[in-house]
């Protein structure tokens, strides 16, 4: 199960931000005039699990004035770096394929924070623990859809089985291309990508970095075998040096 966020029909109403905070009792973490168009939340964080981004583009000859809007969220990666590095097992994979933090286990080590290639998960100052979107784990268990998907008035945020969503998204991109929206593309829909495909994937109308998303994210764990290999060689080198030293001349 997951999200397909079709940003081509987002109207920037932020009902998703409000519904998420209401349902999950997420603390208030500042709401200000950022000067970044209509963006008040600025980015995802421990107390912001849906963030609506706004980009005003006015100098593109082919497209004239464009106002891009996108509701960003945790990607619930198939290959999830935050889950891989969590040392306490607080982060786990649910029966729905989503990634959730157990609040009673997390000890706030903060390792998940720099591991995420999208800068999603963060540590909340008030309680010292890591928090992020749960994909409304408590609602899914009762057969309900997540709060943001329920609240979205345009169905920009769609919830359902991933294979269905991917098929729907593919058809939507084809429609957009046929209508002349040649910059429309899917992001994180491909199971062969750097995170094994996202549990939340997007239809974007420009490059990912325009929205603050990494162009080619790869889960850090992919390189971990190589890291352990070099650690082992370096450790063996130090150990060999020790053996050589212990065979040296006595004082």
């Amino acid at each position: 199960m997951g999200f397909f966020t079709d940003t081509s029909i987002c109207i920037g109403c932020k009902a998703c931000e409000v519904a998420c905070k209401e349902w999950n009792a997420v603390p208030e973490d500042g709401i200000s005039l950022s000067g970044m168009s209509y963006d008040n939340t600025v980015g995802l964080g421990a107390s912001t699990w849906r963030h609506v981004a706004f980009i005003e583009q006015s100098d593109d000859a082919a497209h004239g004035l464009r106002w891009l809007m996108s509701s960003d969220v945790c990607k619930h990666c198939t290959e999830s770096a935050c889950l891989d590095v969590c040392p306490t097992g607080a982060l786990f994979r649910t029966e729905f394929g989503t990634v959730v933090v157990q609040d009673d286990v997390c000890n706030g080590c903060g390792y998940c924070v720099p591991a995420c290639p999208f800068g999603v998960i963060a540590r909340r100052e008030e309680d010292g623990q890591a928090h992020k979107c749960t994909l409304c784990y408590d609602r899914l268990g009762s057969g309900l859809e997540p709060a943001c998907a329920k609240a979205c008035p345009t169905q920009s945020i769609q919830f359902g089985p991933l294979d269905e969503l991917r098929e729907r998204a593919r058809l939507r991109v084809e429609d957009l291309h046929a209508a002349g929206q040649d910059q429309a593309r899917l992001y994180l829909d491909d199971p062969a990508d750097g995170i094994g495909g996202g549990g939340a994937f997007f239809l974007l109308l420009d490059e990912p970095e325009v929205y603050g998303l990494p162009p080619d994210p790869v889960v850090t764990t992919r390189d971990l075998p190589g890291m352990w290999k070099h650690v082992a060689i370096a450790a063996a080198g130090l150990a060999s040096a020790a053996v050589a030293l212990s065979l040296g001349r006595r004082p």
Partner: protein
Amino acid sequence: MVPDAEFTSYYGRPVIKEPVWQAPDVAGYLFFGGLAGASSVLAASAHLSGHRDLARVARLSALGAISLSAAALVHDLGRPARFTNMLRVFKPSSPMSVGSWLLAGYGPVAGAAAVSEVTGILPAAGTAATLGAGLLGPAIATYTAALICDTAVPAWHAGYREMPYVFAGSAASAAGGLGLLATAPGAAEPARQLAVLGAGVELVAKRRLIKRLATPGPAPLSEAYETGRTGVMLRVAEGLTAGGLAGALLGRRSRALSALSGASLLAASALTRFGIFEAGMTSARDPKYTIVPQRQRQDGRL
């Protein structure tokens, strides 16, 4: 083919989140943890080759350093009271989990070695503990390289092939340096040799790491290591390492020169860890270091 010099970001905002780790706690742990692990290695070698004074110094250094390390790590947690949750699971996919288990084993063993040394109680057990700590020491001194590299932090992740050697060398030179500082020259030969070897490895590995990161384009990751305050820290560290190495080689008969070079190597090792820590933070804060390499990789594929 000259890469595109332009890149876009979302209002210049960072893409990834920088670590929440505080430098004194975590960069401090990188230094003290490395010092502890390598000191245990030195203690074992010194013990086996009959260097009694050096073995004593190294055992005590290891315990002191690992105690400071543990305090720093627990202090850095968002919920310090839950530090025991680190041992809820064993996850090889998490260097922090592997490290927690290593520390849980190494700490008591290093402690036993030092206590036996100081009190004279159970010398056979003390010897076993010394050798046990010596066996775990190399892992303690190097796993932290995997820990910081196994993140999305560009300047750390890209350097994962060289980082373990930088850390091993830095730890060895620090441990050898402390041995030189605290032991008479005639009795410190293994410390001298370890210091020279470690310093050499550290110098070479660091250079290679930065060279690998000097990719063409508008956002080479080597910038994070070479510019600003970090650049100053790492250049000073390099100078102190080189000076300490020379002093260690030349100071065989001089207590003063040996001690000076030992202190120099210790300072260098600490500066290196703090510098690497800062370089990572710099690379996490500026979106170009995340976006440009990925865009180059993406475009190269098409």
